[in-house]
């Protein structure tokens, strides 16, 4: 008996986590997928009824807004955070004496809750007493900056706050990447009189392709999951102008009592993540096993 225990101990230790993952991750995904194919409203029902919920999603102007917002927010957030992160990393890579302190400053927003970030930016961007009022107070009476309450511009405030929060992290990733490039190659290039910007654009940056991919995956993942930031910053408003699939799902699940819509919109989110992450994970795991 003890012999058997001894031999199987690794499996016994892993078993609870394995069961937990199978039930609480894959089982739950299965449940949500199933319910997304039913007519569930206030209570979950289990009789399958084709793609009725997905048709409702397709017909819902609110969900359409959410998807368009995700596309706008996701693209801008990822592109700006990457460009800014890379720029900051390169600037910091020039043997700056106070590098440690500056890095700390650039990165600290990552330690904050999105709710805190949203609260802070909501206050800064509010037109009555925030930036707009402040600049007006400096004598620019015509200054206007009311994106937060503007239907068409509010989504860009979400981009701004999200970039503020996450670009430092991208910088840290890129900085680690810059430091891992073989210094001999860089020195050789400098001895040959190749200008620094060419060293970056032709040697260093191309060699960091895997880091670009990692940063992209992390940012895309953050964008799709973005929920708390929108709740704290705009509450999805004005109207539902800044709704994202995540806030749509939450509204359907917990305030509208429409479980079918909640489940189907969650599945759409899942699908978006899937298409981005699975190829990445697959390639990662394959190279690890080789």
């Amino acid at each position, binding site marked *: 008996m003890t012999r058997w225990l*001894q031999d199987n*101990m*690794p499996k016994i*230790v*892993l078993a609870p*986590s*394995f069961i937990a*993952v199978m039930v*609480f*991750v894959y*089982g739950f*995904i299965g*449940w*949500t997928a199933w319910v997304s194919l039913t007519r569930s409203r206030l209570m*979950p029902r289990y009789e399958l009824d084709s793609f009725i919920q997905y048709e409702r999603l397709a017909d819902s102007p609110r969900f359409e807004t959410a998807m368009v917002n995700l596309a706008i927010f996701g693209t801008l957030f990822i592109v700006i955070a990457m460009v800014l992160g890379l720029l900051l990393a*390169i*600037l910091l890579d*020039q043997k*700056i004496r106070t590098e440690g302190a500056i890095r*700390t*400053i650039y*990165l*600290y927003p990552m*330690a*904050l*809750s999105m*709710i*805190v970030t949203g609260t*802070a930016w*909501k*206050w800064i961007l509010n037109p009555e*007493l925030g930036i707009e*009022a*402040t600049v007006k107070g400096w004598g620019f009476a015509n200054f206007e900056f009311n994106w937060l309450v503007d239907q068409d511009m509010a989504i860009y405030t979400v981009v701004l706050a999200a970039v*503020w929060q996450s670009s*430092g992290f991208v910088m840290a*990733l890129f900085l*680690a990447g810059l430091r891992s490039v073989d210094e001999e190659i860089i020195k050789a290039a400098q001895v040959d*009189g190749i*200008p*620094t*910007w060419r060293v970056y654009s032709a040697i260093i940056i191309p060699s960091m392709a895997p880091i670009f991919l990692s940063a992209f995956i992390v940012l895309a993942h953050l964008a799709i*999951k973005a*929920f708390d930031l929108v709740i704290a910053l705009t*509450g999805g408003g004005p109207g539902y102008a800044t709704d994202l699939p*995540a806030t749509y799902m*939450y509204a359907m699940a*917990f305030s509208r009592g429409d479980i079918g819509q*909640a*489940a189907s919109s*969650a*599945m759409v989110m*899942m699908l978006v*993540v899937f298409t981005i*992450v*699975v190829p*990445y*994970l697959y390639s990662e*795991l394959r190279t690890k*096993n080789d």
Partner: protein
Amino acid sequence: MTDMSYAPTRTQSPTTKLVLRFILYILLGVFALFYLMPLFVMITTSLKSLDEIRTGDLVSLPREVTFDAWRTAWSGACTGIQCEGVRPYFLNSLLIAIPAVLISTIIGALNGYVVAQWKFKGANIFFALLLFGCFIPFQVVLLPMAIVLGKLGISGTIPGLIFVHVIYGLGFTTLFFRNYYVSIPSELTKAAKVDGAGFFRIFWSIFLPLSLPIIVVSVIWQFTQIWNDFLFGVSFSQAGTQPVTVALNNIVNSTTGVKEYNVDMAAAIIAALPTLLVYVVAGKYFIRGLTAGSVKG
């Protein structure tokens, strides 16, 4: 691309070099201001009186420093109908985060130890399944989890939230420890086995003593994640068991009475303090967690 040429190269004259250095530092300073500005505004706003906020501007220092807003935020601000400040919710967050961090780290360490050092058929598949679980949008598990928590009788309770955070934290903690233990030569385990040491004995006397750095990474990562969580907190709590992020959001969005921006800001800083403190004290490990969680697969 022009920005990249600010770095000195061998062909530049000393004066150009100096000018470029100057521009470089100016740029770094401007960005530093961008990142610091919200924190600065939060702090100064929280120290102003409401009157001063209404008349003054965002970036000015308080004419008269007052800690009233901090007192109210801590013990008097209203989150809906209750007006006890963030204190009880701050405590809730601690009661949720501490056990959840410890449990998920311990299980993650054992899982990582198995996956890295006791490979058996299927261990890698388990790891892949677990890893993928790190990436799912949690919306996809919210509804069934609400039902299961109800069935278990822990819905809306702090143990319920601990449970949820442990389950969905396992992926990352296992990943951390697995990646750490994989670099320890497996000959060590084999030799110990030959000497008659068992599974736990090897873990306890060989692996655990080596693990301090990765334990710190895991604890910091989990603490930050759980403390900053909002989605689970708002979905699975009820009046009285809400974590501090949910309370903060309620305070900011409560519509009763005068809008007290200074109290909002003080409450936001209080909610941010623990993770900020962790970051300042152990920033190195914080960054390692971030990069380990994203770079390595």
